[in-house]
């Protein structure tokens, strides 16, 4: 899942470990065989009842919850295979100039959007222009400031020009935010585009019953499946009823009672049960894990020693294991999660639980006295941390338990951590987004590339403030190193710079690691080939089929 950002809701997702061994499929007309494939008779048609979690305000946008939906109704230029390589989708081929500044895509001919508009090079160029001007906030920050222009050379050839080399471009384009929409449809009102985006995908929107469900119906004329598809042709099922079941108990119960065929985000308390009864897939999302931003420009965390003491002062690993019942991995690297290409494992070794070290750092920082409640004080001021967290969206009940455990451990070294659960309305309104409103705040931001470092940590300037940096941590050296990674000639070279950037962030304790953003699905045993795509774990239903 992606994060919300400040005043706007921004999201970035990315690819990660796809448990493909569970998902090997078969052709549309082939007998059902192979791991994850059905053993009964394959059925054409049917309706998949999918119990999802959160409902977005619009069906298209920059939040991961929107990308999940868009993956099923929009096609993209390219897609990512399990091994991280880029594979054809709407673009059957592409060439990159030697200087890395020009990408020329060859498009599959004859593709049409579901409104009849031709999906040609001009349509894709129009979509690039749409993203660049903010039509999708995550798409915009994912190519900014590298993108210069896109133009159609003819109906099937598109040229994308960059201001400077940007090695992760193709990887970033695999996210659902870069789904291509009909330029004819984009000329409609915002409300219409919000309610019913028009693409060329395997499904199209039939009806959105707000607060209840989204009904997707098969696009019978589908011709543009990606190279990673598990079958060739239109979707096998007729319909997907995408139900919004926020309550985890109700969601899991819907699967166990047969009211749904597949659910998203299996509650960790039910994980073992789900493993026994259903086909389960867990996806550790790349990008920024759930880590704690610390306000470096106001309050107690302006002092690096205090930030480091905060990192040492709690047994985060044990807290994560307890809160998530051992299902979700601990992640001590605050800037890039373990499933991200370019992850620096050395960074994850910093700040082990060490109360002696935490106490020594706080003493060194001048927080030497304690009040009657046991909290440290300095010049009569208590070592207080206002810890705001988006309850129910970024932080589930399980995450809240983790925070409560940490709160008690931080108390032992003298921090008075006040947990402030944000309602969704408060999160959307940006109540806790200014430097005056909090000292610490956990967030994640999924991305298939370590280029997420640039989105989150690029230095803020007057002309181009970076609202995504919730630590308000400005470091020119960090910005330079990340840019060197983005513009590197090879992946190895890029990863070297990305690794350095992760080290700088960790050394300065600009954030504290917590756990990986992890999503999961559980699928009924008579439903097969539902899979999570690589870039950010978007559920794919176009290959799914029932057996009887």
């Amino acid at each position, binding site marked *: 899942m992606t994060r919300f950002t400040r005043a706007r809701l921004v999201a970035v997702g990315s690819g990660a470990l796809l448990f493909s061994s569970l998902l090997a499929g078969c052709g549309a007309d082939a007998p059902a065989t192979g791991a994850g494939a059905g053993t009964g008779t394959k059925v054409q048609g049917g309706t998949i009842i999918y119990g999802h979690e959160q409902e977005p305000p619009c069906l298209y946008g920059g939040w991961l919850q929107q990308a999940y939906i868009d993956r099923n109704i929009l096609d993209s230029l390219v897609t990512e295979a399990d091994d991280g390589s880029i594979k054809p989708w709407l673009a059957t081929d592409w060439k990159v100039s030697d200087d890395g500044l020009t990408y020329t895509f060859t498009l599959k001919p004859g593709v049409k959007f579901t409104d009849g508009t031709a999906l040609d090079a001009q349509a894709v160029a129009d979509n690039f222009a749409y993203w660049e001007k903010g039509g999708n906030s995550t798409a915009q920050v994912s190519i900014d400031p590298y993108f210069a222009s896109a133009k159609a050379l003819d109906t099937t050839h598109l040229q994308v020009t960059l201001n400077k080399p940007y090695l992760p471009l193709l990887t970033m384009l695999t996210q659902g935010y870069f789904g291509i929409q009909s330029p004819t449809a984009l000329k409609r009102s915002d409300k219409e585009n919000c309610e019913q985006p028009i693409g060329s995908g395997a499904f199209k929107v039939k009806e959105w019953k707000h607060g209840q469900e989204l009904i997707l119906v098969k696009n019978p004329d589908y011709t543009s499946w990606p190279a990673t598809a598990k079958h060739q042709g239109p979707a096998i099922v007729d319909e997907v009823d995408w139900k919004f079941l926020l*309550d*985890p*108990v109700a969601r*899991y*119960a819907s699967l166990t009672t047969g009211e749904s065929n597949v659910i998203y985000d299996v*509650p960790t*308390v*039910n994980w073992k*049960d789900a493993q026994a009864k259903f086909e389960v897939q867990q996806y550790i999302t790349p990008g920024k894990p759930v880590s704690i931003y610390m306000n470096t420009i106001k309050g107690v965390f302006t002092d690096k020693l205090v930030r480091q003491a905060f990192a040492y002062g709690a047994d985060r690993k*044990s*807290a994560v294991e*307890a*809160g998530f*019942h051992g299902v979700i991995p601990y992640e001590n690297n605050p800037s890039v999660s373990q499933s991200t290409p370019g992850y620096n494992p050395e960074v994850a070794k910093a700040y082990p639980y060490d109360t002696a070290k935490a106490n020594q750092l706080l003493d060194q920082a001048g927080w030497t006295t304690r009040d009657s409640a046991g909290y440290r004080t300095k010049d009569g001021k208590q070592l207080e941390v206002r810890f705001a967290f988006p*309850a*129910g969206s970024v932080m*589930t*009940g*399980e995450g*809240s*338990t983790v*925070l*409560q*455990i940490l*709160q*008690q*451990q931080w108390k032992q070294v003298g921090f008075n951590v*006040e*947990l*402030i*659960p944000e*309602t969704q*309305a*408060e999160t959307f309104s940006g*109540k806790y987004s200014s430097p005056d409103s909090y000292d610490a705040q956990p967030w994640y931001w999924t991305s298939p590339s370590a280029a997420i470092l640039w989105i989150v940590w690029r230095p803020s300037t007057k002309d181009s403030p970076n609202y995504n940096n919730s630590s308000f941590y400005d470091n020119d050296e960090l910005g330079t190193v990340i840019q060197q990674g983005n513009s590197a000639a090879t992946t190895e070279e890029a990863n070297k710079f990305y690794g350095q950037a992760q080290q700088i962030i960790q050394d300065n304790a600009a954030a504290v690691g917590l756990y990986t953003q992890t999503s999961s699905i559980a699928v009924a045993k008579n439903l097969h080939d539902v899979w999570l795509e690589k870039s950010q774990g978007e559920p794919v239903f176009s290959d799914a089929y029932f057996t009887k």
Partner: protein
Amino acid sequence: MSAASVSPAATRARLAAIRVQLRPATAASLLVVAFLAVAVIAPSVLTSGSPTTIDLQHTLLSPSFSHVFGTDDAGRDLYTRAVYGARESLGIGLGATGLAMAIAILLGFAAGLARGIVDAVLTRILEVAFAFPVLLLALLLIAIRGPSVATEIVAVGIGSAPGYARMVRGQVLHVRQAGYIESAVALGHGRWVVIRQHLFPNAIRPLVAVMTLGVGQSIVWASGLAFLGLGVAPPSPEWGALLDAGRDSITTSPWLEIMPGLVIVLVALAVTSLGRTLQHRLEGAAR
């Protein structure tokens, strides 16, 4: 007064009152309320633990002799948390009911005394407000102000005030017709003296019992809000928050829901039972 001067009717009323006092349900309710009072005033008398102490070696233990309510997913003793949660839960219940009564008395007396256009306007307003469920109003307020103890008190208080206000207005209209009010006016007492010394106490008396009933109801509403994640901030052991925290584990660790749920039901029943008893006694006294 001699025994011979006591009328048979008065004797029957007193005996009835004694029988009411001795009812097992009343005795049990008093016991629960006494336990609750100790939990509010001196929780350390009832448990030696701390409601926030975590123990990651003993998480999600089912009820046993060492943990009579079991432990939660942070290893916290649930009985200790329930005991310490009494202060906040009861505080919300009393605060919300007190606020509701204050609003109700203000509006009810204004409508009942002024009558005419003022009465008509206030009554219509109350009827409109009455049409909104308490939880809906509470959700609106929490969405605006954010969740906290104060917001819960205000939200539940305002939400339940219209019902009480209608009762107060009815009582005022009833009492102002009484003979002793007419006598007081005939004796030349001033308007405010009549209201303060005769109307107010007699109109309010029946509401004391209703208020007691309201405390239990407010606790349940506040718990409902907390259960929806709109209550007090963690790690508060407020009872509704305990319910909310245990919700995800209802199928695997049901005691996390059952125990705080039982506490809420028990306290609400006890307070309601006492309220009924009080109501009966006051009605008896009035007769």
